[in-house]
């Protein structure tokens, strides 16, 4: 494509850039990594997005995080509590008024759903997940998650960035920084959302890391449109190629006179990357290339799950093309009065209606993703995570709602490196607080980094005089869950 029209073939041009990089020594972009950090593995390359070898052999190449925005209730999804079912309406022992964001009743509220055991693991699943219940033996459940913030934005920031301080990089940015990109034509970190989750960009921020590592955010309401991928009208491909050729020629001449300035070579390269992205990005998002069977599998033919289904299918196409970290913030839940909630799983007033609706939107596509990834062998390299920013109170808010509860909730993972069918850690008998093998976000991150081949204490970046880590000053790898 691009290379054919230029004076140099693509391999030749790569060689030019490579030579430029090596010839210029250890400065500029690579220097940027050197100067500011001590922790990115083997950064001795010109391009900060070039793939880098991890600290250890990695089981996981890509991550898809199905972010259940708003905080699903653990005791109504994956953390079955018979004791809670028995004591509906009774005082919740140890109820702590500081748990939720509002005020709760202190009375147990049982799960309104029917629960059954599935799979060889005998995992309990409520009837709102008819599709995901078929996959429990692939899934490693972490029942003892906790964090410190009890409102959406701060908790989401803590969950994605390790602590609740704004301005820190999110996990996806850390991964790109640490591992580079497996596909130079696509961003390595892609976020999809519908209505924007509370906290907005802060949840997928590159923070103080260079913008090289920032996420590409795709908005479902704009059908995942990417800004500036194409110019409006009156500009043919041949015109653009001629233009790019001239730009490159002039910029190369300019760079040749400034041999100490290696970022100039990267800048020249970036036009080529941009040109390729113009092709690659729309191709990766083109669901027309998928069969109608696949469309149906993900539920694209059904209005209630078409959006999340599309996002999940795009996620599969992206990891297929080497994208490292894809995060889907589940959008839209429907309240009992039919109004649309911009914080989907946030069931303050009516847990049952809310969770039925949210599950209906997400269950089939999430299960389809597992099925599809497995069928394509991608589940051997892709880790799927399901979970939101916190759980819910076991006592009721109002008569049939649940308030925020950061003290105990469930996140699950499926994919390489983790033990399927495992239920790790536990909340108390009411699902109210994590009590056994408690997992803080830092522990989760340390474990995820390990799965991706990174030692969390070695992935550091110096900013304002301090070496920062995704895991802040904490983080223990959950050895027991690793396969």
């Amino acid at each position, binding site marked *: 494509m691009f290379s054919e029209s230029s004076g140099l073939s693509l391999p030749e041009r790569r060689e030019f850039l490579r030579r430029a990089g090596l010839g210029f*020594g250890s*400065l500029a*972009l690579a220097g940027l990594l050197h100067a*500011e950090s001590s922790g990115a593995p083997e950064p001795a390359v010109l391009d*900060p997005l070039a793939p880098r070898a991890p600290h250890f052999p990695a089981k996981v190449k890509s991550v898809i995080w199905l972010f259940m925005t708003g905080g699903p209730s653990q005791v109504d999804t994956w953390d079955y509590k018979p004791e809670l079912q028995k004591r509906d309406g009774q005082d919740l022992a140890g109820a702590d008024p500081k748990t939720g*964001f509002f005020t709760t009743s202190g009375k147990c509220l049982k799960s309104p759903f029917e629960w059954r055991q599935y799979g060889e693991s005998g995992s309990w699943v409520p009837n709102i997940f008819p599709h995901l219940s078929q996959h429990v033996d692939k899934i490693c459940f972490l029942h003892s998650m906790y964090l410190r913030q009890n409102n*959406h*934005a*701060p908790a989401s920031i803590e969950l994605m960035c390790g602590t609740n*301080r*704004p*301005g820190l990089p999110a996990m996806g940015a850390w991964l790109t920084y640490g591992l580079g990109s497996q596909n130079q034509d696509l961003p390595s970190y892609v976020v999809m959302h519908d209505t924007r989750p509370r*906290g*907005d*960009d*802060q949840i997928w921020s*590159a*923070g*103080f890391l*260079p*913008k090289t590592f*920032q996420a590409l955010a795709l908005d479902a309401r704009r059908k995942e449109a990417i*800004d*500036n*991928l*194409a*110019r409006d009208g*009156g500009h*043919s491909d041949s*015109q*653009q190629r*001629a*233009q*790019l050729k*001239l*730009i490159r020629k*002039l910029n190369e001449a*300019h760079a040749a*006179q*400034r*041999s*100490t*300035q290696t*970022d*100039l070579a*990267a*800048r*020249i*390269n*970036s*036009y080529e*990357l*941009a040109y390729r*992205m*113009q092709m690659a990005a729309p191709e990766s998002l083109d669901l027309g290339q998928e069969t109608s069977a696949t469309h149906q599998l993900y539920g694209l033919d059904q209005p209630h799950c078409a959006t999340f289904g599309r996002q999940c299918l795009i996620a599969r196409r992206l990891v297929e093309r080497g994208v490292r970290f894809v995060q889907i913030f589940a959008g839209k839940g429907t309240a009992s009065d039919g109004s649309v909630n911009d914080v989907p799983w946030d069931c303050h007033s009516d847990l049952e209606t809310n969770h039925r609706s949210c599950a209906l939107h997400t269950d089939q596509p999430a299960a389809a993703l597992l099925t599809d990834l497995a069928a394509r062998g991608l589940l051997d390299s892709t880790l799927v995570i399901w979970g939101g920013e916190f759980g819910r109170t076991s006592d009721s808010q109002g008569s049939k709602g649940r308030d925020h509860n950061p003290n105990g909730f469930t996140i699950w993972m499926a994919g390489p490196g983790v033990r399927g069918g495992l239920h790790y850690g536990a909340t108390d008998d009411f699902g109210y607080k994590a*009590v*056994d093998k408690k997992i803080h976000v830092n522990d989760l991150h340390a474990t995820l980094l390990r799965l991706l081949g990174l030692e969390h204490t070695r992935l550091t970046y*110096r900013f*304002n*005089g301090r070496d920062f880590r995704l895991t802040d000053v904490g983080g223990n790898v959950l050895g027991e869950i690793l396969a």
Partner: protein
Amino acid sequence: MRRFVWLILLLHFTCGQRIGQQAQGQNPGQGQRDDEGIRFFEERIRPALAQHCYSCHSLEAQRAKKLQGGLFLDSAAGLLEGGDSGPAIVQGKSAESLLIKALRHDGLEMPPAGKLPDALIADFAQWIDRGAPDPRDGAVPLRPKREIDIEAGRRWWAFRPLRPVPPPDAPDPSASASPTAGSGTPPDRSLVSPIDRFLLHAQRQQGLRPGSRASREKLLRRAFFDLIGLPPTPEQLEAFLRDESPTAFAAVIDRLLDDPGYGEKWARHWLDAARYAESGGYEFDGFRPGAYHYRDWVIRAWNRDLPFDQFIRQQLAGDKLTPDDYDGAAASGFLVAGPYPGQITAKTVERIRYDQIDDMLMTVGGSMLGMTIGCVRCHEHKYDPIPQEDYYALAASLQSTVHGSRQLDPDPAKTITAQKQHQAATPALLAAVEAFASGQFAERFETWKAELSKQPDSTRWQTFEPISAAAERSWLKWQANGLLLHDGAMPVGSLLSRGGESRRVGGQEIITIVARTHQKNIQSLRLDALTDKSLPQKGPGLNGDGSFQLAELKVLARPLDPQAKDPPIELALKPSFAGGADPDQPLANALDGKMETAWTVRATARADNAAIFELASPLAGFDQGTELEFQMRFADQGLGRFRWSFSIEPNPATWAGEVTPQHLGELRSLLAAGNQQLAEGMRRAMMPWFSRFDAEAAKVWDALRTHRQSEPRPSLPEVYTTTAGGQDVYLLRRGEVDSKIEKARPGFVRVLYAPTDAVPNPLEEAATDPRVRLANWMVDVEHGAGSLLARVIVNRLWQHHFGRGLVATPNDFGAQGERPSHPELLEWLSSELVQSGWKLKAMHKRIMLSEAYQLSHDVIPENLALDPDNRYLWHYRPRRLDAELVRDALLATGGNLDRAMFGPSLLDDSVRRSVYLRVKRSELSPWLTTFDAPEPTQSIGQRVSTTVPTQALTLLNSAFVRRQAELLARRVRSAPDVPLAQAVDQAYRVALGRAPAAAERDEMLAFIEEQAALAGSDATARDRALVEFCQVLFCLSEFMYID
């Protein structure tokens, strides 16, 4: 309590440990021996400790490197001394003992493997309540304290006082080792600038030689972007190239320093350091409409070359140094520019309060001192000599700093002048009324007089037309027929100029209305409180629910005749009837002389209400007319729309009814007083009433009336700044708000504090506000942080001129930061700054007139081998334009940059300079973010410059860049007869600040032809091809870089 500070250190290092003494005087082994208790311990407690605790909390564990939390449970002393979280037990008080809390899983959870049986925990509690008898006499190892030695800390280069450093001699050019040296060294050594002498000296030591000078075109472009952030126009380029005088470049620098763009460019650098944004971040990212005043203040401060020490003092304490002053409040916006949660509950309020102070403190540290202070919140600084006490001393200095908004007049002097001018214009208008009254009036009135009898009779209620109306805390607008309407609230508590004087606005509304009448025998008064759609809940009150509470009403009557001797009378009023009141708060409450009770209209709000008063005895009225003053005092806010009426009939409660304006009644009454003759003295009094019927009279009267109602008001923009409030700050164990240790006293970073014996110490005057003291300390070169402050700002200037500071870590001058490449030069520049009165513009000029600044990028191969990083500045390193400047340069190049300054922020589609774009934390400008504008959450000293494909995509495809290319094409070829070659030349000058070489021009022309051929055969193909060429220019590194 001091001991606790040391107990809570986070100790990640392993320095030598000493075996210390047992905790003094606390050994339970001393004193009376509790044999039974010891037996209990041996039977129940010791085995449990050994089984469940020793593996992590014992000397043994320490030897095995398994000690956790610095806690030893294998000796009595260890329990009492405790670990990182404090003592493990409080003898006799199990409920207060951390050990019990941990065993009960209350906040801490021990042992980690699982909770102990309840019975065993009860044993522990019982044992502690008994006094924790414990025969174990093992010593507890002294904690490996890292005693911060402040005195030693002062020896760190950055913390020393500034010292005078003479510049080295200039090198002798004839002795130079390199005859091929560029023009960097003038032949006359005495002309070598001090800066160059430092640099050349260092270069010589390294075996380097300076490169050649940059071309004049490049130099001009460099200077323009560096000082004002915009490219030179072709005309400016030509003028500079023509000016061959040796001072041509100095003249350019002077002009640029005077350009308003200077403040816009350099404010942006400071705003990075100040983590400036206009929203709170977090959950709802609430927008702060008044935050931009800080940004504008910074721009103005740089433009007027406000001495840097004052610039700093204003930001730290402007609100305290000049209370009620717009500038002071705008400057204090610095303190509150950080993120702040929108949703705060009782559960989070205390933590958030400390987070706020931490945010301020980190920003102060990073931006002003180049120090990392934030980590000291939880533990002593690991690298720099900052103990936790210093952190909390700074925090205490900042404790009375609360986020808020204030409405302040940016220019009160101007308002007062305008009001005085307004007042001064009154006599002339009054004179015109007098002249009319004594002139035309008589004849015109006589002509009209017969009409009077044809006019309708007055109704029972006649409405007063006020002579004046004023309110304590609101503006009033005069409507027709005596109605007054609320016209905006004054900010309570603020100093406001009114009537040409400044006064503080009170919180209780007082409305004073003055009216006049010549009618006699007034028997009743009536207040109408009316609704209006402009009012909250339609009114009639201004409270949020439309209610009001009239606490007290007073009506005074006095003679209109200034000669009259009669004293004013306070009318005795009886509540007659209220058309609306809360049942238990009747009208009588407004007349009881008590401010605590009020006529309250809440239940009947959102509807018209009225109150009728009877005079205890009718007001006979004064001979030459009566002036009535109505004083209405409200509990809080006042009325939204109202009027006063009167009646000369008794028993008003028995009739309701219509109101008419008072003018006919007045005319009739005045005529009656003169036996239907126009008495001389009556003419002036009749003017307001007659003006209703006579166009000429209306002209002069209305001119006066309109004038009276149009007193200039102050403009009162909302400024996001500090407001009163705040609470004491406590030293916190590990930064946890639940672990308060003791109240912190305001103070400074002691390593930067050198109190003298001089009395009184200027920094310790207790009477001064702690934040003012902090500000004074910050700029005090002798006793405070002034030396470091000077180094840090000089380094920032240097960095933004050379791409890298003399200290490469501008926000970290501590042990973790880079050491200065030229320590003596930094010292000299900093001293110069202080000696020249902290003036920054002179410093820019000094730097830019150095040879080093004017070097070209040319590479000298021998130098490259020795100093590839250009640490010694032997050539000039190009650097990419900052995000704002890329955008501004595009707008300037397209010729559509709007240079309007200041004001509320704008979205990306604006054509104003980028410093005015909105900075909303959750929705940062896509353009600015793409080109590496930082997250405004922490102080940023240095932006990272990336080359991501999204930048290329933006330049290639965005509608904005396309539009600028079109505008540039039109600018350089305004008509079809302009030769393309000429257009190409001009486009180069506009976009790149130079003319193209002949070969370049030919290549561009060929490109345009090629594009035209590809674009099609229509007439506009070549025009569009020219646009493509212009867009190519924007995609050039040459365009994007300062070279």
